[in-house]
């Protein structure tokens, strides 16, 4: 991509500068700014979450980084050889026509890795994702949580640069499955120490997983704050919620988002 920054020697795996993404709304016949001037960087091995209400353009930023959309203005750089960083998608994105093993090995297959080597490389990932017994199952035979674990395994299998993009991967799951998968993601991240950009609308999820949270506001989509999450690792997704700081940080983010909405209706009445 011509507009990517030249590779620089730095500890940052991702650098985004003044990224703007605008759409033309064909129905209302007006241009819409989805992302306004986003600038941030992600250190190597850092877990960064971008948190905000729906429509704030957080997914758009990720789609640009994933090579799925072209930015309108601005530049970005992602570590690696110019291939797109692997992405874990929002909803069930496994190909229904491939079994679990072949889904996870999809990126390897595209790169021409031989079948036997593919299977060898994928097997430990399947075991890590708790899917060893489901190697030959088709996606329609899996539960929602298992599908997303397979999606994470697929992204890990195809990841050369050590950068993972995750677009609300647990958003469609029920709360218990969701916390369970957060636990597993924490465990996997502890082991692999990938650079992760994680999109979520859940403040709790962002605090549970990340080293740093970028808070975005909607219309226009803008990064309004950056919050460091100081919890020690390894973390436990459930124990973390007992900590006083967890509550304080989450209220800080709530206040930021509330300030964006302006005074509430009650306040106007009073």
């Amino acid at each position, binding site marked *: 991509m011509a507009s990517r920054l030249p590779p620089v020697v730095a500890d940052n795996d991702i650098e985004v500068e003044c990224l703007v993404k605008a759409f033309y709304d064909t129905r209302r016949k007006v241009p819409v700014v989805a992302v306004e001037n986003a600038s941030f960087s992600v250190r190597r091995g850092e877990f960064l979450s971008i948190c905000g209400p729906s429509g704030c353009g957080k997914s758009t930023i990720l789609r640009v980084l*994933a*090579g*799925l959309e072209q930015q309108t203005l601005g530049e970005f750089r992602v570590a690696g050889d110019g*291939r*797109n960083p*692997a*992405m874990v*998608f929002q*909803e069930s*994105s496994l*190909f*229904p*026509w*491939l079994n679990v093993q072949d889904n996870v090995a*999809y*990126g390897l*297959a*595209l790169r021409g890795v031989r079948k036997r080597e593919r299977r060898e490389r994928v097997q430990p990932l399947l075991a890590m994702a708790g899917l060893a017994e489901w190697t030959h199952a*088709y*996606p*329609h035979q899996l539960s929602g*949580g298992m599908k997303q674990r397979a999606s994470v395994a697929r992204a890990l299998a*195809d990841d050369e640069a050590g950068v993972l993009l995750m677009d609300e991967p647990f958003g469609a799951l029920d709360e218990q*499955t969701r916390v*369970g*998968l957060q*636990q*597993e993601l924490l465990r996997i991240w502890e082991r692999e120490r990938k650079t992760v950009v994680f999109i979520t609308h859940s403040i709790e999820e962002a605090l549970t997983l990340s080293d740093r949270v970028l808070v975005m506001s909607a219309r226009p989509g803008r990064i309004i704050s950056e919050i460091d999450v100081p919890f020690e690792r390894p973390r436990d997704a*459930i124990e973390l919620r007992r900590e006083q700081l967890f509550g304080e940080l989450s209220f800080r983010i709530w206040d930021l988002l509330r300030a964006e909405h302006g005074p509430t209706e009650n306040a106007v009445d009073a």
Partner: protein
Amino acid sequence: MTTTIDGGSGQLEPSAKHSNESSAPVDVAGLVGPSKGDRLVQIAGVLSPVMIVLLWELFSRIGVLDARFFPPPSSITGEFWDLLKSGSLIEDSWATLRRIVIGMVIGGVPAIALGLVLGVWKRGRQVITPIFTALYPVPKIAIFPLMLLIFGFGEASKYAIVAIVVFFFIFFNTLTGVLQVPKIYLDVARNANASRLQLFRTVALPGALPGIFTGVRLSVGVAFVVMAAVEFVGAQNGLGFLIWSAWQTFAVDSMYVGLVVISVLGYLCLVVVDLVEKFTAPWADR
């Protein structure tokens, strides 16, 4: 997920009401399989077609049914064996089947290819699809005389008419199949740096397979209809010819044999298509 929450001192004791040990097993002895009445209905459902055949035989013999139009099944069966032994039934069945299979291949292969290409190539689709949309309502059987004019009275005209009929069904179903592939699968492939050709091979083609099979299944049905009609007037063999010449010679038994055999052949073709689909697209559990 095997995470267990450590009880700790603040944990509440589970109340006896919900603990597993104290609850008695639920009595499910009263739940049994289908009732006697249900089973009778099932048996009646299997037997009812057989009953009709028996009644037909009976009424035809005692004269309630006019045996000239509805000969007893036993006499149709006798005619079936005669035609089978003489070899003419095999010859006619083979002629019809061969025309349908060859015609379907000639029409189906380009239909799948064009449907796939236009499915992923938007500009081409916008320019070329209207041609086929405009031609679609033409009743295909009506152009058989034209086919006779162009290809003559031989086999070519029969292949051509089946190919044309089949082309439309398979083309439109393939195209729809590609267009209905969820966008997220294309995103996955593009994120994994798939080339255009890889996108086509790993997403568009497997995604369109269920649509292609729908087209083939519809085509089989229509191909038999068209072939029967074509053989009425434009052939010297085939099951359609058998039925038509049975009318001309008033051999009603043979006519029924032709009807039954053509139905069974059509059914078997559908079974083969289903088997092929199970093999090539095992994920699409219909």
